[in-house]
């Protein structure tokens, strides 16, 4: 228990003193028991007997921030490999499997040499597209791949498919999973409370004797994951590049899932090195939340986890700092989405003394009684939906974003101006007592809401630990209550500068817009109108557009009756565009 007796007594006195005044609730405090093993592994425990389960997880303090060019995505690929079993689990006979794995790696190295040639050929312009596409496969690669396939079949015969998963499943575990982020790789599962020892057995086994089997097919799974999450998502593919623009030097610059070229070429040897450096017990924290006795858990921890030797070297520190941004940066994307504006600034890391004030700033802006909604939606009517603000404080740096969807009939510029006006207000006027108290009341209630599930409490402990300090779970609610109007004004001025701005404008990609007038047309007429509208959209020269309009106008009477409404629509749009082009031209001359 971390509750300090003196503080507790002090609180009682305070409560008595305040008797008769309205009841004030205290922010949540979670009794966390912390134990560190001799090998440096840290264990965090919270006992709650409500449900006969234990949510168990651990975090390796490694994420994409620890990667270098060429192996981006390895932390995440690695997370996948940790489910492939061990020398005991997932195999019929590891001694027979081992030489096959070595052979596979040797073939893969030969294939890498071939891919290097293909990369060179692509640089010279001799081949097009993806070097891994079947069209680009050389005869040598075909042979090697066939050989690989043969070995994979041999390996397959020796594998007990996904046995790690099977053992947990048949023992009543649920939610076996993991995630990788910039600063962390986190593994977790919920087990029935009588199976705590199984959890220690399984997790210590995969930390002690992991086998990265099926490495190359799993790499393909990760490529599919990237296609799903990023490349086939209408927005995520642009957000990835926006993120990459936002972070210049700090290694949050590359995506957690990795650049596609790197994911396709990471080798098992690189994975081995990665494991040796970052998966040592001195770089790992375990969290258990649920129905168990801490003394028993400590006994199990000593028995199972103490076996893992401390790493030979401490993981190297991250030294690269984000270089100060010199000027505002902008990106605009034509995407399949509604028009949207996003503005992002660099703020503070997780452990910063200013984190609480920055969070309160986001809270003041958010929600239907928040400043963005009141201004952009209720007063100025320039945004649709609910404008948002988020603050994300990570281990080495932080970001803060506000954004909104542009309402019909309004412009990106109006939304951007309205968003920025709310930042200026926070910089120039102290926030009122009632408004500040409102967000503090919410933050206090949320400090309890966050604790409703054992699983999420376990995750929060691990995430906070990875971002800098798990004590934030208990300290942050109090720090949020202590934020003053002056604090908010100070951080608003310090971090939200014009030169530090990053602005993203999404506009709807031509041809994917909803268009009620177009949709109202019949069959062929609609198709024809759609094509003509797309062509007109490409014309940027007012005089050329004028010629088109004149021609259309002259020929419209000859059009068959079913096409008349289509021609009218096209003419109307062409005239609107002409007006816009002419006024833009006039604007430039000023």
């Amino acid at each position: 228990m971390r509750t300090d007796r003196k503080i507790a007594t002090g609180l009682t006195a305070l409560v008595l003193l305040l008797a008769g005044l309205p009841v004030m609730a205290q922010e949540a405090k979670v009794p966390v028991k912390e134990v560190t093993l001799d090998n440096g592994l840290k264990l965090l425990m919270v006992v709650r007997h409500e449900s006969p389960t234990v949510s168990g997880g651990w975090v390796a303090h490694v994420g994409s921030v620890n990667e270098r060019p060429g192996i981006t995505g390895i932390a995440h690929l690695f997370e996948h490999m940790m489910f492939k079993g061990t020398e005991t689990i997932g195999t019929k006979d590891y001694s027979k499997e081992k030489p096959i794995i070595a052979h596979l790696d040797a073939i893969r190295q030969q294939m890498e040499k071939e891919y290097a040639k293909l990369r060179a050929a692509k640089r010279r312009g001799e081949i097009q597209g993806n070097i891994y596409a079947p069209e680009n496969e050389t005869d040598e690669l075909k042979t090697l791949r066939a050989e690989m396939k043969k070995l994979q079949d041999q390996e397959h015969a020796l594998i007990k498919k996904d046995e790690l998963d099977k053992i947990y499943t048949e023992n009543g575990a649920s939610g076996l999973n993991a995630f990788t982020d910039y600063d962390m790789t986190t593994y977790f599962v919920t087990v029935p409370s009588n199976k705590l020892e199984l959890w220690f057995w399984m997790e210590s086994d995969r930390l002690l004797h992991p086998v990265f089997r099926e490495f190359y097919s799993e790499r393909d799974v990760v490529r599919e994951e990237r296609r799903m999450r990023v490349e086939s998502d209408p927005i995520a593919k642009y957000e990835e590049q926006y993120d990459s623009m936002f972070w210049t030097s700090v290694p949050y610059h590359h995506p957690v899932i990795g650049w596609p070229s790197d994911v396709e070429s990471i080798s098992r040897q690189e994975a081995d090195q990665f494991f040796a450096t970052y998966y040592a017990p001195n770089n790992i924290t375990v969290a258990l939340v649920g129905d168990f006795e801490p003394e028993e858990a400590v006994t199990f921890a000593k028995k199972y986890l103490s076996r893992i030797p401390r790493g030979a070297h401490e993981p190297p520190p991250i030294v690269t700092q984000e270089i100060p941004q010199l000027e505002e940066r902008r990106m605009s994307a034509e995407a399949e989405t509604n028009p949207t504006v996003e503005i992002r600034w660099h703020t503070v890391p997780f452990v910063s003394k200013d984190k609480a004030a920055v969070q309160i700033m986001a809270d003041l802006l958010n929600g239907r009684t928040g400043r963005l909604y009141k201004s952009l939606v209720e007063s100025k009517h320039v945004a649709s939906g609910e404008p948002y603000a988020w603050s994300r404080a990570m281990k080495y740096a932080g970001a803060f974003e506000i954004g909104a969807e542009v309402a019909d009939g309004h412009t990106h510029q109006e939304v951007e101006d309205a968003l920025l006006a709310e930042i200026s207000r926070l910089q120039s006027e102290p926030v009122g007592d009632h408004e500040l108290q409102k967000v503090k009341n919410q933050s206090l209630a949320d400090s309890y809401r966050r604790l409703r599930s054992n699983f999420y409490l376990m995750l929060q402990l691990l995430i906070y630990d990875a971002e800098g300090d798990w004590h934030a779970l208990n300290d942050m609610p109090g720090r949020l209550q202590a934020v003053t109007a002056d604090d908010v004004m100070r951080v608003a001025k310090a971090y939200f500068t014009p030169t530090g701005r990053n602005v993203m404008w999404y506009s709807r990609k031509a041809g994917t817009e909803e268009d009620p007038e177009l949709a109202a047309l019949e069959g062929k007429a609609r198709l024809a109108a759609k094509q003509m509208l797309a062509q007109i959209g490409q014309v940027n020269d007012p005089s050329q557009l004028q010629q088109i309009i004149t021609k259309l106008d002259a020929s419209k009477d000859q059009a068959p009756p079913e096409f008349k409404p289509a021609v009218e629509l096209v003419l109307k749009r062409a005239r609107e565009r002409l007006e816009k082009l002419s006024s833009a031209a006039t604007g430039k001359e000023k």
Partner: protein
Amino acid sequence: MRRLNIIAATLLILIASAGTSLSQIAKRPEQLKFPELSFTVPDAGSMRFELANGIPVYAKADTQLPLVTVTVLFRGGAYMEPAGKEGLASIAGEVWRSGGAGDRTAQQLDEDLDYLAADLSTSIGDVSGQVRLNVLSKDLDTAMPILMDVLTAPRFQADRFAKAKDDLIQEMKKRNDDSANIERREWDRLIYGDGYWINHLPTKTSVDAITDADCKSFVTSLVKAGNVVVAVAGNFEEPALKNLLDRTLGALPKETAQVPPVPQPDHVQEPGVYLIDKPDVNQGRVSVGQLGFRLGTPDEASLRVMNDILGGGGFTSRITKSVRSDKGLAYSAGSYMTFPVTYPGFFRALFQSKSRTCAGALGITMRLIRGMGEQKVSASELETAKSSFLLTFPRRFESAERTATLFAGDELLGRPHSYWTSYRQRIAAVTADDVLRVAKDDLHPDRMVILVVGNSEEILKGYPDFPDKLGDFGPIHKVPLRDPLTLAPLTEEGK
């Protein structure tokens, strides 16, 4: 000397025990011995009481946190929307909360609830809806009258009503942006048919036709004492809670609502491949399946176990193992079955794969589906699936809120509480023969529909490593995208 001896002896014991503790580590997890763990389903009857007007309440105390949740559940939903007013349930559900109540304007209601740090939400779903309040337990007395205002005197304030309609139309504009949304919409059309209420989706015209009076009468017609079941969970004292509820919810007039039965689908879709072109994505989304069953169908337990082995059980299931883990053809691959209480669900196997390998992965998936009806599952597969159902069952009752809401939902929709008390027994009774039988009788691979959304040109090319082509799985029907606002087909073929 003696002292030294003691130290030496202690050291020896320590060393010895360290030695044994290491040697005690089991070689395999199967060798571990676990203490017994028994679980009894909480007694629904003991949580239930009735208010003066007959409203049933399921209350379960949990004093761990100073929070309390009151959920008012009611029957009725989107299936009752009149033709031409599609979207009514969703808009009414939204403006009910956002549009003010009692003597509070929308803005005052928002301010007061936010200052109180109370989460108060309203929603109307497919066949039922709810009003839910979560608040610090010290503020329950203050918040309950506000909940009552929302329940009985919603204002549907004009600006918020207009806003909800605009927002829904903004959302509708995104209908074709994400291939996942297209797939979700078209799947329901294939399974339930255009005529079924699930596919009566809002259009710009139908949203324009909805009035605030429509919302008010829709909501008012459902909030009747005879149509409501309440769940309460969290930090409360039972006498005080009963008193509070009697003064508030207990005062609702003793009326029943005219809630019609949920219509049943009668659609039969021509089997084959339904292909929707979405040229700008590099991964295809593929779904295969058929109409299924309501909850409580005699084969339910066997069907659940069957599906778990086929594709429902994650990495222990055949589809995930084969399509993802063996071949690396997908990140997400598996199957699921739904068993709604009031209308039949469906069986659906699904995956996403790069365009060129969609047909190959589909071939594997189809062979696995067929295989379920051809050969008995292994004892080990059966055991894993059944153990998982049996041992994870207690998690349905892991919090007071889950338990109270589950039991209240039973009474609301007509699912007997005994469904839960006999659940494990029914799962335990499933045999490999049962699994084979239900796969043969209830899965119809030859009559299934296959939905494919993605870059059709690439998908049709196939991949050299796999013999399968999309056309091998039945006639290919090219399905047009639909205009996001009118839902009219966007090309000639759809006419």
